[in-house]
């Protein structure tokens, strides 16, 4: 029995030594792989994903006036890619309009990019009148903006904070009104 007890104690001690060795090595790895604060995703590179700077673009709106995303810096932006034939886009537009009306005076803006390459201007104009949309809408006639934002499905929405950093990307829809309200409030709070 004494021998069995001794074997148990030895095994336990060996395991404890192994444990401490592993933890020390792991601790050393944590220490050497530490980096300067802000050196990971810090929004310096423009890319269409959360944590990165929203890629800038220029486009024409419904009145043929130029619109530039970077001019909206300092305001939270919802960048929404849509088309008039897309059912989820139709479903989420009324909620987007209501949320825009409620938060516009706090600086929030919606920039809706119409995927004109797969739509037509007449339908877009009829759509805007039907849904009484008051936020800026621009035409992506050659698909440049959609490619810049790697849009593979409609609708796709990018929530951009006042510093121009993308905070969330939502592919598909429709987004519910509650989701929109929470995200917009979070963007406004982070200002």
């Amino acid at each position, binding site marked *: 029995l004494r021998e069995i007890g001794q074997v*148990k104690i030895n*095994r*336990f001690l060996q*395991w*404890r030594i*192994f*444990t401490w060795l*592993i*933890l020390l090595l*792991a*601790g050393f*790895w*944590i220490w*050497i*792989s*530490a*980096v*300067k*604060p*802000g*050196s*990971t*995703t810090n929004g310096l*590179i*423009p*890319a269409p*994903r959360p*944590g*990165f700077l929203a890629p800038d673009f220029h486009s024409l709106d419904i009145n043929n006036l130029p619109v530039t995303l970077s001019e909206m810096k300092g305001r939270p932006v919802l960048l929404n890619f849509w088309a008039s034939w897309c059912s989820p886009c139709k479903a989420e537009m009324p*909620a987007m309009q*209501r949320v825009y009306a409620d938060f516009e005076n706090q600086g929030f803006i919606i920039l809706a990019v119409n995927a004109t390459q797969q739509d037509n201007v007449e339908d877009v104009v009829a759509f805007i009148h039907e849904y009484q949309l008051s936020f800026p809408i621009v035409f992506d006639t050659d698909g440049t903006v959609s490619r810049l934002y*790697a849009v*593979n*499905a*409609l609708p796709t929405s990018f929530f951009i904070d006042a510093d121009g950093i993308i905070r*969330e990307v*939502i*592919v*598909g829809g429709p*987004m*519910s*009104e*509650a*989701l929109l*309200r*929470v*995200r917009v*409030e979070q963007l406004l709070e982070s200002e």
Partner: protein
Amino acid sequence: LLPVISIGALAVPVPALVLILGTWIGVSIAERYSKKFSIHPGRLDSLLITSFIAGVIMARLVYIARYPDAFLPNPASIFSFNPGLLDRWGAVAGVIISSTIYIQRYKLPLWRILDTLTPFFAIMAISIGFSQLASGDAFGQVTDLPWAIELWGARRHPTQLYGIFGASAILWTLWPGRKLIFHSNPGVYFLIWLASSAGTRLFLEAFRGDSVLVLGGFRSAQIIAWLILGLCLWVIGKKLSSV
């Protein structure tokens, strides 16, 4: 990087599809080897389904409780399919509470349940890697190594692939069909998987470009993984010494 597959007018999100596939394969393999751990496959099924439903319901309820004002203008949003209206900690609480109640109600042995679910967890770890590869999440640091991949405006470590290789190596080593000596000690199989996964994450996190930094530059995921690793090794030591 393949976030969406377009099938006609239907846009299928690939990351979610990969996770669903991983869940199906994981559950099938866990069920296949469940008798090895003296757990009936039907019990395992019921436990997973109950936990999933409770997790989703709790996630939505907690979200509503956190942001009640957002639901007042349009209460129908409560039943919206938006996954963005789910609270992750609510989901975790729902899964823990429902599985605890289920395990106690049917007097199931907790460590044996965790051993049985280990292949499921291991396969999910691989499918999470594939899901991140499709979405471009969990991306690596900028590097000029020859195997770097072009992602998000720079050449980066393919950390998603590192994760897939790591999780696959763990699954291969701990494949439930093998005869492993620690299968006889309840809980050790699960704890070894958890310790290996924590160790792998701790190592690979150093190559990530999206780490959350704390305490002046330390990667928070590494600190959490170190704590889990230490806890697992300590419990394994206790269990082995009691044999």
